[in-house]
């Protein structure tokens, strides 16, 4: 850490008593934080703990209801990203703020020159960008269009954007959520280079291993309150997890079970895309009863197409799909549901629930024509509500009742509702796409527990997740998806985390080595 004249590390940022309310929700409750030059501070907390809100206040996206911010000894005017930028604060958002159709150089330089200059000085801008890239090991191509970049590259552009503006404080919101293990390691490398240069870094995370891999100090937020600040070396995982959740957490662990007969078999399945490379390319896969098959991969490599294929939303152009031993051809979603496929969609807001409709309407959305819920074309509302009350109780959905609109539910309760709809009819195959994305630890262990119960009850589970930890925790066997192609199934434990990371990044040349090791 950079030391001031008195021998103490220089304080670069001071947040005092930050409070923010959204309606009745208290997102930040009198939070105070101090950041020193050369320090990496991990802001740890569950989803909804108020981490992102706090950083958005710091960067001027939101205005705090109470509290003050001081950067480099000067008060920071609230509500102005421009003021934050000028004070030397740079933010890398969780959802990148890049314009896809513009080049890397455009994205980095926009807003850095006086607007009314008669001509942009592109040459100087390019030279400066390349110099920064070189100095901090952030390789980029200035003229590439952002849409063509990988997620890791986009993140490098975001960091360069901040450095280009002489940021001395860098805020990273869940920076590793979308990275392969190797990309994360290289990000942490970059962070070390930045702090060696005297920058201060705040990174927001809910993953414990990152905190220990990269931070000097860890601050834990729970329900909007700062519950603890520790030197990272003085604490441990169990302690931090308890601080985060407020109670002890026991992760779900699968029991060994003998796999049954196959429920889903894909043989050389290809799904075409509108342009160029197919979304799925000659994929082979089998999911058996009492088995969880994990599909690991970086987002955008064909996971969505695989989920849509199994849901009946898209059809195979070549190859065959077999369900419970019978071939399936061009089945629509209704047919797939009838055949015993239950799905947890990737995006619960857009494809899982209709927010403006009630809990009971959403619960019977897949089965409203069944005799239990309609007779002669007229809905049996009473029966549907009774059914809804049972699911709400069975799946511990916290909501005012069957008449509540689903958009008023929290993310975790929405997912429980979907889980209830999915599991209530004893499906043969469960398609779980990103089943715990954005959920807090408590809800995650609940969802995992329910999926494992369904497995024990004889269902096959196809788990598609970008969270490698989740796959390692639940799956019996793992396949890695990259550019629409799928590796053979690897029993969980056969490949190391770093080997899986390499496979996710497309280095399939190591496959024979992994397969031979058996």
């Amino acid at each position: 850490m950079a030391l001031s004249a008195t021998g103490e590390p220089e304080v670069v940022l001071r947040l005092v008593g930050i409070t923010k309310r959204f309606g009745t929700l208290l997102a930040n409750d009198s939070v105070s934080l101090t950041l020193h030059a050369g320090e990496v501070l991990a802001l740890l907390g569950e989803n909804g703990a108020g981490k992102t809100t706090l950083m958005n206040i710091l960067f001027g996206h939101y205005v705090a209801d109470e509290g003050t911010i001081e950067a480099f000894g000067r008060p920071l005017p609230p509500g102005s990203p421009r003021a934050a930028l000028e004070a030397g604060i740079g933010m890398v958002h969780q959802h990148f703020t890049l314009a896809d159709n513009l080049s890397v150089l455009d994205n980095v330089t926009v807003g850095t020159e006086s607007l009314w200059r008669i001509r942009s000085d592109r040459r100087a801008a390019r030279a400066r960008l390349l110099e920064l890239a070189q100095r901090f090991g952030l390789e980029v191509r200035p003229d590439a269009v952002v849409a063509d970049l990988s997620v890791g590259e986009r993140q490098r552009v975001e960091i360069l954007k901040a450095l280009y503006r002489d940021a001395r404080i860098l805020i990273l919101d869940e920076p590793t959520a979308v990275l392969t293990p190797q990309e994360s390691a290289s990000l942490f490398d970059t962070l070390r280079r930045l702090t060696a240069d005297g920058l201060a870094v705040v990174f927001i995370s809910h993953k414990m291993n990152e905190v220990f891999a990269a931070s000097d100090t860890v601050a834990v937020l729970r329900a909007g309150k700062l519950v603890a600040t520790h030197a990272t070396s003085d604490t441990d995982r169990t302690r931090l997890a308890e601080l985060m959740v407020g109670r002890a957490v026991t992760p779900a662990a699968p029991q060994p079970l003998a796999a049954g007969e196959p429920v889903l078999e894909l043989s050389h399945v290809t799904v075409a895309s509108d342009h160029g490379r197919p979304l799925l390319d000659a994929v082979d896969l089998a999911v058996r009863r009492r088995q969880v098959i994990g599909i690991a991969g970086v987002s955008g490599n064909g996971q969505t197409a695989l989920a849509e294929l199994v849901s009946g939303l898209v059809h195979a152009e070549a190859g065959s799909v077999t369900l419970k031993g019978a071939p399936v051809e061009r089945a629509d979603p209704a047919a797939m549901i009838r055949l015993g496929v239950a799905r947890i969609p990737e995006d619960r807001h857009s494809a899982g629930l209709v927010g403006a409709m009630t809990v009971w309407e959403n619960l019977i959305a897949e089965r409203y024509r069944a005799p239990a819920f309609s007779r002669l074309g007229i809905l049996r509302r009473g029966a549907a509500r009774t059914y809804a009350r049972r699911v709400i109780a069975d799946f511990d959905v916290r909501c005012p009742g069957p008449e509540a609109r689903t958009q008023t539910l929290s993310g975790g309760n929405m997912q429980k509702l979907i889980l209830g709809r999915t599991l209530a009819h004893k499906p043969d195959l469960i398609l779980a796409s990103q089943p715990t994305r954005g959920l807090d630890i408590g809800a995650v262990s609940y969802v995992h527990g329910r999926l494992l119960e369904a497995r024990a009850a004889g269902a096959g589970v196809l788990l598609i997740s970008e969270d490698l930890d989740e796959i390692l925790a639940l799956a019996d066997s793992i396949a890695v998806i990259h550019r629409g192609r799928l590796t053979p199934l690897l029993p969980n434990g056969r490949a190391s985390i770093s080997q899986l990371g390499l496979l996710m990044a497309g280095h399939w040349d190591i496959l024979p080595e992994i397969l031979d090791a058996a």
Partner: protein
Amino acid sequence: MDIVASLLDILVSAAFWTAVLRIATPYVLGTLGELICERAGVLNLGIEGIMTLGAMAGWMTVYQGGGLWAGVLAAAACGALLGLLHAALTVPLGLSQHVTGIGVTLLGTSLSYFVYRLVLPQASTPPTIVPFQPLPLPGALAQTPLTYVALAMVAAIAYVLYRTPVGLAVRMVGENPAAAEAQGLNVTALRIGAVMAGSALMALAGAFLTLSAFNAFFFNMVNGRGWICIALVVFASWRPGKALVGALLFAVFDALQLRLQQMTGGVLPYQVFLMMPYLLSILALVLVARRASYPRALMIPYRKGER
């Protein structure tokens, strides 16, 4: 064979290309105006009304004794004002751009007729002014100054969009306003400014009709040209150079159909020829626009700090 020969005759005649450039001018100006608005993320369906107001305001200024260039400026100012109205409703208030734009078109058109009738309650035949005269240049280059203004605008706008910081900022707010704001840009101001500038250009397109192409103001004289400009922006994939190509292409079809009407002399109803440029535009749009990559934030209102 006859028809091919006479078609060739038409295509090599200077008079034909003179007409093409003249017909193309309002499309060039209108398309550029719409293009600027859309590049900043705001669809401006007010174009038809803004063109009508520009046509009326330009003509009225000259009719009341102002100079021709004063008429041009008055038209641009009126266009910018209607643009400000559209922007005020769609940018800070975030109203539906479709509905607001149609409202602006209805307002602009009716306001123009209303003011015209207020000033000239009795005129049965529209009074005339002395319009811009063609410059003394050879062949198809003998165009009025506004045509050259339109051509210069193509280059100027391409330069501003791709070579200056403000152009980059405008493109950024049309692609990803959240990113623009995170870079310290004022999304609201940029969008309002772009819509006003674009609307001023649309009004110039209208003024060309009354100050160059004709010498009077008629009801319904814009006659759907604004809607064609909206299609031309898509055809042009939001690029100024391609906008010029599109406008010229449409003008070629239009000039050609006029001459074909005369040539075929009543074999086909003339409406068939009138239809031709529009049909060909739809065809061109279908072929080109499928691959167009539109500004990502087009028609999406931006509200700061929304969760």
